[in-house]
């Protein structure tokens, strides 16, 4: 637990986020130049980067696989909706809102940041009791929180329009906005990971008993990671609903939970690089399969796959990746400069898998 990271560590701490962001910038540039559907597709991908990197901040550093962190996306997205939604229709969808929210529309950027803070506040309230739990009990308790909030929001008609969707959110999330947010998420994730808090928490992940014995305040550090993660996921949720332009409670439920977790695990949940690579890879596979589902011409015949085959193929791809790389594609490594590495291994990895 040295306070001044060694040279290799420093190299990776600075190089990895720069390289990752550079990669996303190039991806966005290509998409922008290509036009068509691509800018929209890549925008959605970048929003998923925010969500999955947010998940990684908690899961990767604490080692607790949470099934509930999407709840912060839900909470923040509704908080942003209350502030920015569809001025004329606000009282139609959400008649229960207090007057200062009904009568005012807040600009989108402060609204998003405020919504992120609402998620952090909520995370603090549930985190203080729940972060004492470890392992799978913690993951389930967090899922319990997600299910509770979902049930509450679905019955809380006056503020959330219940189970129906709210349509007409300002759609301000385009390629540059999403790129900026994804880059910020990556920087936050690396700052946390390489801070002494991140280092201590990762030590506790490997061996909780030893870490406690060494005086590491495990619970407090978990709460910290939980709060940072809640903010990033909250922003991700806000961007997601302002990208699609509608919001309903269902958006942030099992499908998104599983999809984001799958992205994280495929890439390797112990590394931020893994989180980003997982998103890109899963999205790439989905897009390719979508093209296939539109029909493939083989020798004059057009082969059309029945509905569901795209998802079935995605599941097979995921399984194959997991079978060959159970630690995820990146394991616990981060991206580093491809050249000028001191020695194979020494700059790449500072942790070993258990």
């Amino acid at each position, binding site marked *: 637990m040295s306070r001044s990271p060694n040279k290799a560590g420093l190299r990776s701490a600075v190089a990895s986020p720069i390289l990752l962001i550079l990669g996303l910038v190039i991806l966005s540039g290509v998409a922008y130049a290509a036009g068509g559907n691509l800018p929209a597709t890549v925008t959605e991908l970048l929003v998923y980067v925010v969500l999955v990197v947010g998940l990684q901040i908690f899961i990767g550093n604490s080692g607790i696989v949470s099934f509930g962190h999407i709840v912060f996306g839900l909470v923040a997205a509704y908080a942003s909706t209350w502030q920015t939604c569809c001025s004329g229709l606000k009282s139609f969808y959400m008649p229960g809102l207090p007057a200062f929210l009904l009568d005012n529309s807040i600009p989108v950027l402060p609204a998003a940041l405020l919504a992120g803070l609402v998620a952090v506040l909520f995370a603090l309230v549930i985190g203080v009791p729940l972060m004492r739990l470890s392992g799978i009990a913690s993951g389930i308790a967090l899922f319990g929180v997600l299910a509770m909030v979902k049930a509450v929001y679905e019955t809380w008609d006056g503020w959330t329009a219940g189970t129906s969707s709210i349509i007409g959110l300002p759609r301000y999330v385009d390629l540059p906005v999403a790129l900026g947010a994804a880059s910020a998420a990556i920087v936050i994730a690396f700052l946390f990971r390489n801070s002494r808090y991140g280092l201590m928490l990762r030590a506790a992940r490997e061996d909780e008993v030893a870490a406690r014995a060494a005086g590491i305040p495990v619970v407090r550090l978990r709460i910290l990671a939980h709060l940072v993660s809640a903010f990033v996921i909250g922003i991700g949720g806000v961007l997601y609903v302002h990208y699609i332009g509608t919001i309903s409670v269902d958006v942030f439920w099992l499908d998104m939970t599983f999809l984001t977790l799958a992205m994280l695990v495929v890439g390797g949940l112990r590394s931020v690089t893994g989180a980003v690579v997982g998103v890109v890879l899963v999205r790439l596979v989905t897009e390719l399969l979508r093209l296939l589902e539109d029909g493939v011409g083989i020798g004059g015949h057009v082969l059309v796959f029945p509905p569901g085959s795209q998802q079935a193929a995605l599941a097979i791809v995921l399984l194959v990746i997991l079978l060959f790389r159970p630690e*995820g594609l990146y394991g616990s490594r981060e991206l580093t400069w491809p050249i000028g590495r001191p020695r194979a291994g020494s700059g790449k990895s500072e942790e070993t898998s258990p």
Partner: protein
Amino acid sequence: MNQILQIAFDTISLGALYALAALGVGLVFGVMRLVNFAFGDYITWAGYALLLPAIGFGASLGGAGLAVLSVALPVAVAIGLALLTERIAFHPLRRADSSTLLIASFAVSYLLQNLILMTVGGRPQSVDIGGALAGLVVLGGVRLAILDLVTLGVAAALMAALYFVLSHTLIGIQLRAASENFGMARLLGVRANRIIAAAFALSGLLAAFVSLLLVAKTGSLDYRMGMPLVLAAFIGTVVGGLGNIVGAAVGGFLIGAVAMICQHVLPADLRGGRDAFVFAFVVLVLLVRPRGLLTSTKSLERV
């Protein structure tokens, strides 16, 4: 008074169904540290097995033949599927950590769901196997659905059988030993492959009966029908104490019971938020007993 008896009966009946499902999840978790989300799809596939043409032929055999076929086919499909998924997907991942296994089981589950979507289609199918079981009997002023009585009977019989297998047969004793400490059990000569296959087979068997009871009640099939059950079962095993087979049954039962009690006790305008109360209960239990209600010695931390 009658109403209380009625509620108690409903509660026990749903609790029994959830307990069976939780046992199915808990048995596999015990030996493999795998939270198997595909268990829900064993349930679904067992239900869809009722659409197989063989059942149609069974009708010509008359009542008894049909009844035997409509139990045997789902059981065979669920056990076969459980063993097949173990072999193809989970066996190679045995040494991976539990989050990887978990995601692999999501992928298997997703695949199985979409295979149904591709072949049968997404529209719910109606199946009538509960016809003979519909109706009520009145016992001491309490109206009891025959189906609920059957559910209770089947659950009790299965649990008794499972108890016998686990406590009196070699494979059952090995299974419990492996759940307590897999590494130690192997050192003492328990065959890993055999014991894991046995756990999956038992899990498939339970899935088939859960499916039959569920379909008899709802009369319809849906390609995601196993999902709510597997979630409840999974949460039940955690509440009961992971790695403890009795705990799984207790936990599953509690989840079903709490859900049913909330259904009856909550005022009408809060009933929609029933799940919020169920999950609040789960979170509370975990806060008080982070390792679940019944804890196996293995999960105690040693330095």
